[in-house]
């Protein structure tokens, strides 16, 4: 059996070893969806005009969409990498004939598959319960563009996360702070996880569109909602691919330096 397939299998099994944890985490997700749904639903109730280009249907799709995208793009096991470095557990991987990035990417994918499976179930359930108005994209090229930008987003997030985690090589005791700052604040804000970015002044939005975070959640969703033209879609895919290459280059440099710094200590 191929080694990374075995890693994939083992990741799934170990996620199930924490069955209760996982169920609670999914439960939290459902509650979160409900809260956000009822909030925006009441904001738009009674008026049917668009606010910042969003009417009730589109804002609800945006909110739902972000939640689904979040479980695909942002669900990750690679958040543990910082801990692996500072605890010295990284040693176990460095002495084995195994690609560390490939290992963690596989574990990420396993986690995403599991999360995606569950979120599809939940959303189907919620859909029948509260019957929200959801915008369904039907244009073939747009759907293809959406899937491409989604795949890029997955890899981009992996790279950003790994770069942030690499801080542990130099500051093993401060890694969580870097992670918190980047992932919880910067990333959530600039990726449109907190609110649709285009409610901001357009000059600011176009500035953001040159940052990698923009392509994690906001851009794929904009593509899905049909809010960008084909030209802008291709431009976005091009910029995000460029970021992908830049970050990949940085990560491989930083990682090499980090492993050299690593003294395999701990416990």
């Amino acid at each position: 059996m191929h080694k990374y397939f075995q890693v994939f299998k083992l990741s799934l099994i170990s996620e199930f070893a924490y069955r209760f944890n996982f169920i609670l985490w999914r439960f939290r997700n459902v509650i979160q969806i409900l809260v956000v749904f009822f909030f925006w639903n009441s904001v738009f109730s009674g008026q049917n005009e668009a606010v910042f280009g969003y009417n009730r249907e589109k804002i609800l799709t945006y909110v739902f969409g972000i939640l689904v995208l979040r479980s695909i793009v942002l669900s990750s096991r690679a958040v543990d990498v910082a801990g692996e470095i500072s605890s010295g557990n990284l040693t176990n991987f460095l002495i084995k004939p195994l690609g560390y990035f490939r290992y963690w990417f596989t574990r990420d994918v396993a986690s995403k598959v599991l999360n995606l499976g569950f979120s599809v179930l939940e959303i189907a359930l919620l859909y029948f319960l509260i019957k929200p108005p959801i915008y369904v994209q039907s244009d073939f090229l747009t759907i293809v563009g959406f899937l491409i930008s989604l795949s890029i987003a997955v890899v981009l997030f992996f790279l950003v996360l790994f770069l942030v985690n690499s801080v542990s090589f130099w500051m093993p005791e401060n890694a969580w702070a870097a992670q918190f700052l980047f992932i919880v604040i910067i990333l959530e804000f600039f990726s449109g996880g907190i609110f649709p970015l285009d409610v901001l002044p357009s000059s600011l939005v176009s500035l953001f569109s040159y940052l990698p975070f923009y392509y994690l959640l906001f851009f794929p969703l904009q593509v899905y909602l049909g809010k960008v033209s084909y030209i802008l879609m291709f431009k976005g895919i091009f910029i995000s691919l460029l970021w992908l290459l830049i970050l990949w280059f940085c990560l491989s440099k930083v990682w090499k330096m980090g492993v050299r710094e690593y003294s395999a200590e701990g416990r």
Partner: protein
Amino acid sequence: MERVILIDKLVKEFVVNTKEPGFFAGIRSVFRPKKKRVLALDNISFSVDEGELVGFIGPNGAGKTTTLKILSGLLYPTSGLVQVLGFDPWEKNHKYLKNISLVMGQKNQLWWDLPAVETFELNRAIYEIPNRDYKRSLDELVSLLEVGGLLNVPVRRLSLGQRMRLELVASLLHRPRVLFLDEPTIGLDVLGQTKIREFLVDYNRRSGATMILTSHNMDDILNVVKRVIVINKGRLVFDGPFHLLVESFARKKVVKIYLSDSADIKKFEQYGKVVKVDFPEVVISVPRETVALTSAEILQNFPVADINIEEEPLEEVIKKVFKGGKVKDA
């Protein structure tokens, strides 16, 4: 005999940030960290032949673990030559990594929440072990280490001793040609230590693997290895057969006398240092060269029920090695 490990003039220097105690010093260290250079290995040279089982001893912080980490490619040497199986370990060539294993008594590779057999399966995939070899290795290791009943128990529920034996299985499934063991018996009870020790000797004989074992448990060294390398403060202090280490540093023998009647204890002082008096037992430490003469005289002049001549306790010898530090090649 093929030379498997070659280390020549190896130096490893660490740069560490130091922190002084106190709140303000803590703040200062954030902005202007004080760097300090620490010499962990100072010009170490030795080589190991195929199939050898070498004991690597020294006090805490001597540089034992650092050497093993360099040999397994985890640390980058500051200068000097390191070659194992013809590879430079730092390059982490997969062909190299497939032929070595590093077992650390204080670190585990088994997945905590899963049964050990799952980690074994993962290692089978990682090391690309053919099915038949895998089954054979697993059966052999499981019966040698007596862990048959533990394979399907989640690792978190195992005792330290059980876990350590399973760690060994996980590290040996791919039949490494070179094995680095860092304190494999640390924290285990006497029975657990004995099991691991017996296994290591047996495995070395069966597989012909080259093994380096660090420990500060003297029983590990006494019962397992023939050759020892002693390092202290990053320097190589001794490299040679174990009995030579004892002979060159144990200058004295311990004479234990059991008296049959009371005697003037003070008179023993003329022969050597009186270590312990607990009637009827008297223990004196006597220079190696005069031990035969001394015991004859004691037998003549005292009411002796029994007399015993022993080597100095190993710990004492080792203490002298660390303190005295004369370099001797054998």
